[in-house]
């Protein structure tokens, strides 16, 4: 161990960072190219080993940036290309934010790999599955580690690809293949925004490096009217707002926010561990991560911040409502994920950066645990997902019941598990952070957030109760059985993490641990917010509001409210599905069928998109092809001119009728005409 202490980890890490990406990438390559011949054991050895190796490096990096003497390590890989004079470096940077993310990604990823070795053991595409999973980890690492927007974008699209491949993993089912495609395309809509955001920053600042942007952001004056470049005539603030909003469009795609959330519920078509890893714990949080990364820029744009917060709040409540009437265990979790992501966006939207990231982390733990638990249930119940058929599974699957229960407590925000602290940190931020420019935003987001929390509590407990308690309602002849160690182990580890991560969120005096831990990362953002607030106060002629307090005393009222809300949700769910009110749901469904159908059909949003975007688009395409392309351009103009020429030719041809005297007449007349012209 002597060599380890002799080594300066910061120096070694400069060249080791790339291996976080490369290990899983090689794993994907090996499994993808040779996996068929390797045999199952070797396949998951390679895959899990690769992810574990990445996890080790990430952990060392986290340790280094936390306790070492550097706060940021950059691995300069190679110069990718240049946008004109703007160089695009393929370089990776790890700081505390990305280190935490990386540990979550590779750690949870590793657990899910382990889980999958049993869950997927009977699938013939075993090697393919692990190749895709490793590809995902590689891409996600690139997304997190990228030290500029473009490297991030590489990972951004890379995870999209992995997600596409994994959702459509069972591609022989057309619906699943479609779900994969839908995910990719909807994400592309977001990517379109992301791209435009990058372009805006290129045009505005001439750089896409996070560090340079951060340095630049310190000296911004939003009211400056720009004179040069493509934004001449704009104010700097407007241009930044434009960039932020475009980037946020990208985030709504990747993180399944309104209006682009529609792909995520369908994404449940993939294998359940995939849903756990990609569509709950890691990939979908990329949008939050990106906004947090660029927090120093968002800080200068109150409009963008408000948009982020409001969209997050609306998504949180909207998705929660949709989860009410879902009977598919994975769909409920999916809507729950959308809803929780909404919470995170409220966090970044109101400037509670650390809270959002904290919620991201805890959510990764408990939601991964929930998804794996649901996978465990499905594994036991012959891949059935309809919770109406379950019930009383507690007796058959104790481990699953226990871990699922712990995670449900965590997610519903019941004291004292991690979810409680993370969610309340966000709600507190929403409530306490002043907003000079949009004064209604704090109240609005807080109120909506509470309702969403209530809903969360309700639908989660509903699902939990229906699945594990009561009596079995369907599949009566089938006996469920708990999975093996490879499945139970990760469940317990995740459940443990969901509990243990609460220590970071305890409201100590001077702020939570996690808050202080991330303070260096978000210092620029906080300062920018302070500057912006000062400028705003000056402009509006009001005093600068004091910064909100974070200690226990300040947070206590919020805690109490949140706890009450969570318990109410629990109570309703108990009453309606386990307690005496068991027939009420059916009565509601009968009494207000339209309302029930609206809930059950997810408020017809998919149908709306189909009618407003997809159908007109393909109708336009067909119209353009048949009428404009094939008929107007090709037939009428192109071939028409040829046909017309042919007709004229046929017509002229009959002048040539073989009579020599007629020829002579024509010649004579022509000669006379020429004579006439010459003489006249």
């Amino acid at each position, binding site marked *: 161990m002597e060599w380890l202490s002799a080594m300066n980890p910061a120096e070694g890490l400069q060249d080791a960072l790339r291996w976080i990406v490369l290990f899983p990438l090689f794993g994907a390559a090996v499994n993808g190219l040779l996996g068929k011949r390797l045999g199952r054991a070797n396949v998951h050895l390679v895959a899990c080993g690769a992810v574990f190796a990445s996890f080790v490096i990430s952990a060392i990096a986290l340790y280094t940036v936390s306790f070492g003497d550097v706060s940021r390590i950059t691995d300069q890989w190679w110069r990718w290309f240049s946008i004109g004079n703007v160089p695009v470096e393929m370089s990776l940077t790890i700081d505390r934010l990305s280190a935490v993310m990386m540990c979550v990604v590779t750690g949870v990823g590793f657990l899910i790999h382990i889980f999958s070795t049993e869950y997927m053991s009977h699938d013939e595409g075993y090697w393919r599955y692990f190749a895709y999973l490793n590809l995902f980890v590689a891409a996600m690492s690139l997304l997190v580690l990228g030290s500029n927007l473009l490297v991030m974008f590489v990972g951004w699209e890379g995870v999209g690809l992995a997600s596409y491949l994994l959702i459509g993993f069972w591609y022989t089912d057309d619906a699943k293949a479609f779900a994969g495609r839908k995910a990719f395309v909807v994400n592309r809509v977001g990517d379109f925004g992301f791209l435009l955001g990058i372009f805006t920053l290129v045009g505005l600042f001439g750089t896409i490096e996070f560090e340079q942007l951060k340095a630049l952001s310190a000296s911004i004056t939003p009211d400056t009217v720009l004179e040069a470049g493509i934004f001449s005539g704009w104010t700097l603030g407007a241009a930044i707002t434009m960039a932020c909003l475009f980037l946020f469009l990208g985030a709504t795609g990747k993180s399944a926010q309104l209006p682009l959330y529609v792909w995520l519920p369908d994404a449940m078509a993939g294998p359940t561990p995939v849903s756990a890893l990609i569509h709950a714990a890691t990939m979908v949080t990329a949008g939050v991560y990106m906004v947090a990364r660029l927090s120093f820029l968002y800080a200068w744009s109150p409009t963008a911040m408000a948009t982020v917060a409001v969209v997050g709040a609306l998504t949180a409540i909207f998705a929660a409502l949709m989860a009410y009437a879902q009977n598919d265990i994975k769909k409920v979790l999916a809507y729950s994920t959308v809803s929780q992501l909404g919470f995170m966006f409220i966090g970044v939207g109101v400037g509670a950066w650390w809270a959002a990231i904290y919620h991201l982390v805890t959510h990764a733990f408990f939601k991964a645990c929930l998804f794996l638990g649901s996978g465990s249930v499905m594994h036991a119940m012959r891949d059935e997902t309809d919770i109406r058929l379950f019930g009383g599974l507690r007796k058959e699957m104790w481990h699953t019941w226990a871990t699922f229960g712990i995670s449900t407590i965590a997610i519903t925000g019941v004291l004292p598990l991690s979810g409680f602290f993370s969610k309340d940190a966000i709600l507190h931020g929403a409530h306490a952070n002043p907003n000079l420019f949009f004064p209604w935003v704090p109240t609005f987001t807080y109120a909506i957030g509470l309702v969403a929390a209530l809903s969360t509590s309700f639908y989660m407990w509903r699902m939990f109760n229906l699945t594990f308690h009561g009596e079995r309602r369907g599949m009566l002849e089938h006996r469920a059985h708990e999975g093996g160690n490879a499945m139970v182990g990760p469940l317990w580890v995740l459940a443990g993490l969901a509990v243990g991560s609460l220590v970071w969120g305890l409201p100590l005096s001077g702020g939570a641990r996690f808050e202080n831990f991330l303070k260096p990362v978000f210092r620029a953002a906080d300062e920018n917010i302070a500057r912006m607030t000062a400028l705003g106060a000056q402009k509006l002629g009001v005093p600068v509001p004091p910064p909100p307090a974070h200690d226990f005393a300040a947070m206590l009222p919020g805690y109490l409210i949140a706890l009450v809300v969570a318990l109410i949700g629990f109570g309703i769910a108990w009453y309606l599905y386990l307690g005496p009110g068991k027939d009420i749901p059916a009565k509601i469904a009968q009494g207000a069928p339209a309302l029930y159908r609206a809930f059950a059909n997810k408020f017809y949003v998919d149908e709306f998109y189909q009618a407003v975007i997809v159908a007109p688009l393909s109708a336009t395409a067909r119209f353009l092809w048949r009428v404009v392309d094939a008929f107007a351009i090709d037939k009428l103009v192109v071939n028409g001119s040829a046909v017309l*020429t042919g007709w004229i*030719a*046929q017509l002229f041809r009959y002048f040539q009728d073989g009579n020599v005297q007629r*020829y002579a007449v*024509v*010649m004579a007349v*022509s000669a006379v005409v020429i*004579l006439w012209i*010459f*003489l006249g």
Partner: protein
Amino acid sequence: MPKYSSADILGLAPALVLIVGALTLLLLEVFQESEKRGYQAWFTAIVAAIASLVALPMLDGEAHRILLTQDGLFFAVADRFGGAMAIVVAAGLALSALTAGAFLGARKAERGEFYALAMFAASGMVLLAQATDLLMIFVALEIMSISTYALAAYLRRGMRTTEAAFKYFILGAFSTALYIYGVALVYGATGGQTGLQQVAEAASEGSLLLMAGVAFVAAGFFFKVAAAPFHMWTPDVYEGAPTPVTAFMAAGVKAAAFAALFRVFTVAFGSEDVALHGWMNVVVVLAILTMVVGNLLAIPQRSVKRLLAYSSIAHAGYLMAAIAAAANPEVRAAAGEGLLYYLATYTFAGIGAFAVVAALERQGAEGPLMWDLDRFAGLARVRPALAMAMGLFLLSLAGIPPTAGFMGKLLIFRAAVDAKLYGLVIFGVLTSLVGVYYYLRVVVYMYMREREPSVGELPAPRLAMGVALALAAIGTLILGIVPGFFGEIARASTLALGG
């Protein structure tokens, strides 16, 4: 009295060689057995070769006025232009003769008269290109025409042949009459001059009588070059005449007529008043008309021979464009260069194409079936070389690089642009696009269709035909790829046009 010198003989040498060759052939015909006539085509080709050899000295010398009288009258000139034209005509003669050797040989119709007539016609053409006197032009024109009337009627037994000859003859005679009446009027208008130079001196500004004469002379020429609307005889005659004769007419007669037209119009009627403000607009209109009519009417044709006939009208249109450009004295040299170059390219590609038609022509049957497109179907499989040669000729006719036709068109359009005749050029390129369509149709049949058994057997390949096609193909390629070779000659010859 004129002074005779050996230079006079040298200047007339090409024509003389051709005439002597023709006479020799006729004499040999008397003494030879009738079975052994295979040599005649080769003999003609050799005579043509000698004729072009003796024309070579004309290419690099001062223009020599033949039989110059004391009053400065001369009827012909030995200049570069004449020399170059003599070579072109000789090449046409040789190629047509070889084609004819194969064609007639296959039909057992070889006779000395045929080649003798061809050589006489060629001598007329050479003289036509050299002549500098309207009367001399008349005589040369008639030597050429009367020989070709007879050639067209050569296969007397065919219905179509005689009809073609008849039409050609009637209308040809008519045009001759127009021409000579025009000459008479010019003669009167210039106070008794028929020498081109003298006419030019006497007629620097157009009097009414002169312009009437010019009109008639022009009409006569327009007929010979098949410019619309004087073109109507062309498809019928070209289709009906024996194919080698058609080839000879399309290339040789047209070339000589254009040479004479160019010389007459630029030398005698080349003054600004007569040319730029006189005949230029008419020629422009006729050029456009000719291009349009020739190209359009070729589209619906199924007989390849008739198609090529219309195509030859179209080519006359492009050549007319050169004449139109030549109205501008500044552009005259460029226009002449283009004209000469174009004639050379057309001689190779045009005769080559007709030769392929001759090689495929169905024996025994009559009617359009003889040259129907179906006979070309699948040719690339059966006779790949023949198909490739035909393809090359067609590309050249269509003006697609790197064949000769492209360079020819380039030079002519260049002259027209120089003369600011933009409309003419645009018409030219657009109609040549139409041309591409029907040339491609033949290529499509050759390469992209399967052969129908009903079209019958192809005639056996013959050596003479092979040589003719090979020469034509080589000529087409060389003129396209090494344009400088003939281009320099063409340029030099029109820079100092004698006469």
